[in-house]
């Protein structure tokens, strides 16, 4: 590739042709602030915070969209640049709900950080504010347009990455707001609840619906047994909220923190991820032998994906596995098997799940998710909400000793742990399916072809002469591509894993927010968090779901065998068409 040499603040740098000015500046050691620009996602050039002076240019240049040229002389910190940025910030602040004291994003708000750096302590402009219609509540997300700065990152995420496209800019000029068609609330359009919009929002305009108070109330109710379970990817991200590097596995501290919060039992959803593999793997093998069964079979763990197919491809619903998600299986097992074993009335059990996900908050309200007659799961907290609760309770996370999950439902294989990364469900399934069919463990338990952050991955596995081709997709635009192939009869996979979020659950809509400054500097959050999972798997002595002793006990004592009548009643569900707006 052709290279270009230019000067940034009189420092010479050589970069490939087509490089954006702000990336060239970073190479020279100068960070240019951005509010709308987000690597590989949003390049609107709408916020004007990234302006720089270019010698010979008529006006200031948006360095997020302008590319370098040979001999260019760029200045990123002249008084003209600094004043322009400060004025822009003050104009944004003049139309911003500055309830920063208690705003959930205070401390990691990109607007707040810049306002501080540029000394915008007094907002010189007063006057009208854009009229904001309060958003009607839904189960998973709060939108507060009084804090929105119209960067459009959320719009790009929803439209381009997720191919959902339910939000956009409505009206014009001063009246512009981000909203849905016909000003419907998010809960009344075909939003899949993935929460990816939250993760890219620079300010507090988009947040999860906070359910910490419901948990606190249950914890303080002596009549309730409050049981918590954590999703695989929570433990590789929670530490970030306490200053740990991205990709730090703090499982032991997380367990201790949950115990100190006051949960009666600290169990692990990795355990029911193992159970999911038994049920889903068995379902796949029986479909493979049944000429009338719908193939490819597609995983059903990710509730945003479930909403997506129910809204957009109801004709393909027979392809979905009938398995409940690991979260729902977790609650179902606790309120049936565990309740019976411990002589507890499921009425008095409160099951809290901690998830990297906002869609999980909607999943608990689905029909047929109440195996015991009571909701399988009572409350879902995101990783961020758990961190908030730990902080509120004054628990010094980093100094905690490592704890271990309680028995029996805290025991899991690292196959279950893999569910947190894209390709993980497929890899876990292949480990078990291979051994079930062939009668011996796979030559290598590492199915590396399904790992990594490539949008669509595939692998062919030879099961004693039967070649099975599997596909893995993450983010819904990739899922859509596979679904279109199935519809067109062009899909030759027999088994497909689909995860809603880019990178899978490690990068879910409920995970700690990573600033765009880090993203734009090239930090690969998905790979770092997934790396922690694969590292744990590599060191593990228990790497297949069917060898999990608790799974064996569950079938021996309760379910009989995978896909038994009882298993179907408790661990499976149905999916149905949803009307699009």
């Amino acid at each position, binding site marked *: 590739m052709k290279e270009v040499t230019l000067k940034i603040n009189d420092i010479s740098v050589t970069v490939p042709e087509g490089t954006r000015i702000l990336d060239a500046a970073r190479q020279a050691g100068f960070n240019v602030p951005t509010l709308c620009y987000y690597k590989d996602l949003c390049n609107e050039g709408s916020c004007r915070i990234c302006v720089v002076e270019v010698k010979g240019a008529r006006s200031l240049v948006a360095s997020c969209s302008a590319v370098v040229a040979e001999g260019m002389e760029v200045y990123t910190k002249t008084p003209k640049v600094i004043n322009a940025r400060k004025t822009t910030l003050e104009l944004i602040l003049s139309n911003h709900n500055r309830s920063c004291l208690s705003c959930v994003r205070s401390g990691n708000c990109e607007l707040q950080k810049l306002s501080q750096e540029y000394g915008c302590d007094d907002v010189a402009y007063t006057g009208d504010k854009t009229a904001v219609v309060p958003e009607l509540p839904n189960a998973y997300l709060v939108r507060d347009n009084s804090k929105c700065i119209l960067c459009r990152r959320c719009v790009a995420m929803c*439209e381009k990455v997720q191919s959902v496209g*339910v*939000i956009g*800019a*409505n*009206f014009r000029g001063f009246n512009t707001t981000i909203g849905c*068609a*016909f000003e419907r609330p998010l809960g009344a359009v075909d939003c899949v609840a993935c929460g990816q919009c939250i993760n890219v929002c620079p300010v507090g305009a988009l947040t999860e619906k906070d359910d910490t108070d419901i948990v606190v109330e249950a914890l303080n109710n002596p009549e309730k047994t409050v049981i918590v379970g954590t999703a695989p990817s929570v433990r590789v991200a929670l530490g970030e909220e306490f200053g740990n590097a991205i990709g730090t596995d703090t499982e032991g501290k997380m367990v201790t923190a949950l115990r100190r919060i006051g949960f009666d039992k600290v169990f692990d959803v990795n355990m029911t991820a193992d159970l999911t593999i038994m049920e889903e793997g068995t379902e796949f093998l029986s479909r493979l032998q049944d000429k009338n069964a719908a193939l490819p079979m597609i995983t059903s763990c990710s509730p945003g994906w479930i909403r997506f197919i129910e809204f957009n491809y109801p004709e393909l619903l027979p392809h979905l596995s009938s398995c409940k998600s690991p979260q729902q299986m977790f609650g179902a097992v606790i309120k049936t098997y565990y309740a019976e074993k411990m002589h507890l009335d499921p009425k008095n059990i409160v099951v809290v799940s901690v998830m990297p996900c906002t869609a999980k908050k909607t999943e608990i309200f689905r029909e047929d998710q109440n195996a015991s007659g009571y909701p399988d799961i009572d409350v879902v907290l995101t990783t961020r909400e758990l961190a908030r609760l730990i902080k509120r309770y004054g628990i010094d996370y980093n100094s905690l000793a490592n704890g271990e999950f309680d028995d029996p439902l805290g025991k899991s294989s690292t196959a279950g742990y893999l569910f947190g990364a894209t390709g993980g469900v497929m890899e876990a399934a292949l480990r078990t399916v291979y051994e079930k069919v062939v009668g011996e463990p796979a030559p290598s338990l590492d199915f590396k072809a399904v790992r990594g952050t490539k949008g669509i991955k595939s692998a062919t596995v030879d099961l004693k002469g039967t070649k099975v081709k599997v596909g893995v997709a993450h983010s819904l635009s990739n899922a859509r591509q596979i679904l279109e192939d199935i519809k067109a009869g062009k899909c030759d996979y027999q088994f497909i894993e689909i995860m809603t979020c880019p990178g899978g659950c490690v990068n879910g809509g409920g995970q700690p927010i990573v600033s765009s400054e880090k993203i734009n500097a090239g930090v690969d959050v998905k790979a770092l968090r997934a790396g922690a999972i694969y590292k744990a798997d590599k060191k593990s002595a228990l790497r297949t779901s069917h060898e999990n002793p608790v799974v064996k006990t569950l079938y021996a004592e309760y379910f009989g065998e995978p896909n038994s009548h009882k298993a179907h009643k408790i661990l499976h569900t149905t999916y149905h068409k949803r009307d*699009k707006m």
Partner: protein
Amino acid sequence: MSKEIIGTPQQWEQLEKELEVLKNEPGPVMKAMQAAQAIYGYLPIEVQSKIASTFGVSLEEVYGIATFYAQFNLKPKGKYTIGICLGTACYVKGSGLVIDKFKERLGIEAGETTADQKFTLDATRCIGCCGLAPVLTVNDEVYGNLTTDDVDKILAKYND
């Protein structure tokens, strides 16, 4: 996606025909919205949904365009649209008083339509004939040099 037909079967058939023609054109969404508004007088949700699904864009994208441009209506217009210029020249010459009289006579605010769907009252920007200020249009008719006394006379002309 909303599947209901809106308006008369003829209107819907006409819409489908026009959308079919636009399928081969670049950037068809806005043209489709203009064509649809020519048929219906406004862009109801069913029509916007139809345009969105025909061209593979989201309903929100169509709605975003519909609310961005002043030329698109989200509500049905009356049989006669009275557009009163509130541009500088007309305003100085008293068009504010004229529009107030229309509001009083019709019992509606600017941007609204009478209950019998007969009149829509719009406040417009300069329509480019300041020599006639204050000026208004009723559909394609232009009326200039207005005073408040003209209001009843103009309304009487459309007494059908």
